């Protein structure tokens, strides 16, 4: 048993010290009828080489983005993952460390989180970002609960441009507190601001829009902020931080809380998890924030050091009155993002946005030229767009999978009124050749 160090001889020595005859003696408190009387019925232990062979086989049955060309988006993206990230986060001192509750032995983790908080606040245009939450969807849920706690109001207005999977998570989190969720319809791809105006009342805690939204379309964040604030409500903006290297940050447009999915910042897609929940707020809301926060301070010698701070908000002190039940953050994913942003930097991250949008527009134009294929919405879009197809999007996807193209996300499962639509994402990694090949395959598939 290679993960267990003690030999039988050592076990006997230890039992002798303890004064027990066998390990069974140490289990005496467990009543006999509670004892499992057989070995666990899990598969037999495998040698490493056999295990690797088996798993390689299982992984080969998945259409991954190295072997297939990925145009899938909807909250997870095939963005560049620079080579140093994996090497650095695989250092044992990072990935086998615990939460930095003993700060003197955890300055590596604490400093990198402090850098992460700085970067996310800067990208979002906000005063403060926390050390990360689980994913974009649960971050949104936490933001909604926070808006409820801060305003003491019970209603939330969500644009239909918010990712439907995120909305489901918000609904689940709102069950306990009993909040009411209302929807504001889309116009032609972006939120209908009149619909928002009509839905917002003196009972509204927050208005939620996504920027760019689930369909890839840009939103008028400033106008949404004005509507929310006029009613005494907060504006929550869901944003992808990768895009914020180029796009105007929501904080500059009036957002009170910015949340989103940071997976595109160097976290492998990994079939949807683990992810990276970004959460950033304005200064006056900082003590109501969920999640961990790292702060700068000094040690006894006056030297700079970093600690977890404002911990009294959290469950281990505040218990049932905590701002959230969250315990872990996604520290290792936050570290990936920190290194990613350090590598991309001021110029590179902007370039990622420029390339993504340039290629997305090229692709949209190429696809829209195919007879029968239309862009569903006319609102300006960033790196994703919805196509309306003359044939079933599910069939088109199946056919293009044979061409080793992951064509996009059929939208029927999210909303039947979009049953002819396919959501296509184009990142900086997609080449002109790949896009042209997709266009050719799509033309053949819908002919």
């Amino acid at each position, binding site marked *: 048993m290679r993960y267990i160090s003690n030999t039988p001889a050592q076990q006997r020595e230890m039992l002798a010290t303890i004064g027990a005859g066998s390990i069974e003696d140490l289990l005496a408190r467990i009543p006999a009828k509670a004892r499992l009387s057989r070995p666990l019925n899990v598969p037999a232990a495998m040698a490493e080489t056999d295990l690797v062979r088996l798993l390689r086989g299982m992984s080969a049955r998945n259409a991954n983005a190295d072997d297939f060309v990925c145009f899938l988006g909807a909250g997870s993206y095939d963005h560049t993952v*620079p080579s140093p990230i994996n090497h650095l986060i695989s250092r044992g001192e990072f990935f086998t460390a615990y939460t930095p509750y003993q700060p003197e032995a955890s300055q590596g983790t604490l400093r990198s989180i402090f850098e992460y908080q700085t970067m996310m606040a800067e990208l979002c245009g906000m005063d403060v970002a926390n050390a990360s939450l689980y994913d974009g969807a*649960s971050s949104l849920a936490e933001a909604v609960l926070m808006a409820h706690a801060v305003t003491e109001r019970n209603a939330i207005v969500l644009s239909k441009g918010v990712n439907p999977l995120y909305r*489901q998570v918000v609904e689940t989190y709102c069950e306990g507190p009993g909040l009411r969720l209302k929807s504001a319809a889309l116009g032609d791809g972006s939120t209908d601001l009149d619909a928002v105006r009509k839905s917002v009342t003196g009972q509204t805690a927050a208005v939620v829009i996504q920027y760019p939204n689930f369909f890839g379309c840009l939103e008028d964040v400033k106008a949404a902020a004005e509507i929310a604030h006029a009613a005494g409500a907060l504006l929550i903006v869901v944003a992808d931080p990768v895009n914020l290297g180029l796009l105007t940050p929501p904080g500059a447009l009036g957002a009170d809380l910015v949340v989103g999915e940071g997976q595109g910042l160097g976290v492998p897609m990994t079939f949807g998890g683990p992810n990276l929940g970004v959460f950033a707020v304005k200064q006056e809301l900082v003590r109501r924030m969920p999640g961990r926060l790292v702060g700068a301070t000094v040690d006894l010698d006056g030297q700079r050091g970093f600690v977890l701070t404002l911990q009294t908000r959290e469950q281990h002190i505040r218990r049932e009155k905590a701002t959230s039940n969250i315990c872990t953050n996604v520290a290792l994913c936050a570290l990936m993002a920190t290194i990613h942003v350090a590598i991309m930097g001021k110029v590179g991250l902007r370039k990622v946005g420029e390339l993504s949008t340039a290629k997305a527009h090229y692709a949209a134009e190429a696809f829209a030229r195919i007879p029968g294929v239309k862009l569903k919405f006319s609102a300006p879009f960033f790196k994703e767009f919805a196509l309306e197809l003359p044939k079933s999007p599910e069939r088109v996807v*199946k056919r293009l999978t044979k061409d080793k193209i992951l064509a996009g996300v059929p939208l029927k499962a999210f909303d039947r009124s979009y049953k002819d639509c396919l959501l296509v994402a184009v990142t900086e990694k997609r080449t002109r050749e790949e896009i042209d090949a997709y266009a050719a395959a799509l033309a053949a598939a819908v002919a």
Partner: protein
Amino acid sequence: MRTAKPAYDKLIFELSRPGRHAYSLPECDVPVADPAQLLPKEHLREKPAELPEVSELDVVRHYSRLSQMNYGVDTHFYPLGSCTMKYNPKINEDMARLPGFARLHPLTPEGAAQGALQLMHELSQDLAEVSGMDLVSLQPAAGAQGELAGVLMIRAYHLARGERRTKVLIPDSAHGTNPASTALAGYSVVELRSEANGDVDLLDLERHLGDDVAAFMITQPNTLGLFESKIHQITDMCHAKGVQVYMDGANFNAILGITRPGDLGFDVCHFNLHKTFTTPHGGGGPGAGPVGIKEHLAPFLPTPVLVKDGDDYAFDWNRPQSIGKLQAFWGNFGMLVRAWTYIRTMGPDGLRAVSDNAVLNANYVLKRLEDHYDRSAPGPCMHECVVSARRQKKLGVTAIDIAKRLLDLGFYAPTTYFPLIVEEALMIEPTETESKETLDEFCDAMIQIAREAQENPQLIHEAPVTTPVRRLDQTAAARQPRLKWTPPETA
């Protein structure tokens, strides 16, 4: 008096020099490259974000130096009680990085993700077997989310039966996420008294059980590291009043292959894959918190539910009574691969050896320390032991002082001040992966500290002195929070 060499004290922003770069991106290969020609002006940043401009060597050297300021399981004994800081196998890391897993988009058509779905299905069956539960959802992102899912399912169960129950009973020895998750699910938390050894006070439980109580939530073994031997009586008492029983699975490492929550009468339990099942702690996460249930709670499982039809795996979204979703996609798949790999590496005998050795190691430590520190309870412990620094406190040395001195002696500290019901608590969980030699070194250090508390407490109060920073001013950090780097004022 500092005894270590000066620490590396840079932040990445301080290494930044205008014009330096580390990125590598191709030139634009499509005709229109300028975003100003593609997007309305108001959507484009006026100024680029203030992000670092550094070279690749800057990045690699900086983060390598930062890593050297951390203690990790790979470098140090990490006896944090209730965290199960066991060795993180490297094969798990390799397997999680296989392109078929790491490079798989969550919305890949199901027919083209069968390998991933198969792995998830098999893991859920393994966890069901290990726990004696009927069904497992792999969706929760961490233990706290697993708790929330479990309590929400219990809530849905009662509502479906037309019962409005408003309270959940939780012992005062519980981990903070228990009451926090319960409050989030909309329940009032009623705190029950534990006995001094962490056992459930049956009289207090009896007094509180009623038809306004939805659930009783306990950790087994309890947070003092002892097995609650009256468990069958407890679950029977609860069920007699229609109360569901929830097991916090944080201490699963003690009972693998020995006993199972499903056999003890629990209705729901969660797993912490980042504890018992070796997925790495990562400096604070990501974790994964699958939740196991008995059949009667099946209609309420989070959506979607993974089903097997012949040889094919698919997601079932048609779950009208589901509690909904906890995170956007299907679970922390990268952690699920690691846990699956670990279970296949260990097999049934290996998993049983885990709990046996975890229990042996903790009892060995307890025995070696019992003359120097107060036990929190008589009798053998399970996989962790709690001692009190009550004796040392009388000499002016507290649990936190002891923790800091351990850092100087080359060990990460045990958990301090938890559970709340033990004064000056030090909770020690060695785990099964540590050797007798390491345990002896740790116990020798603890005994040395006990002696220092009598002979030279100043040494302990000054600690740590060998770490990159000394004790930090937590008060200043909380009074004037500085939560991000800002450029220094130019002179």
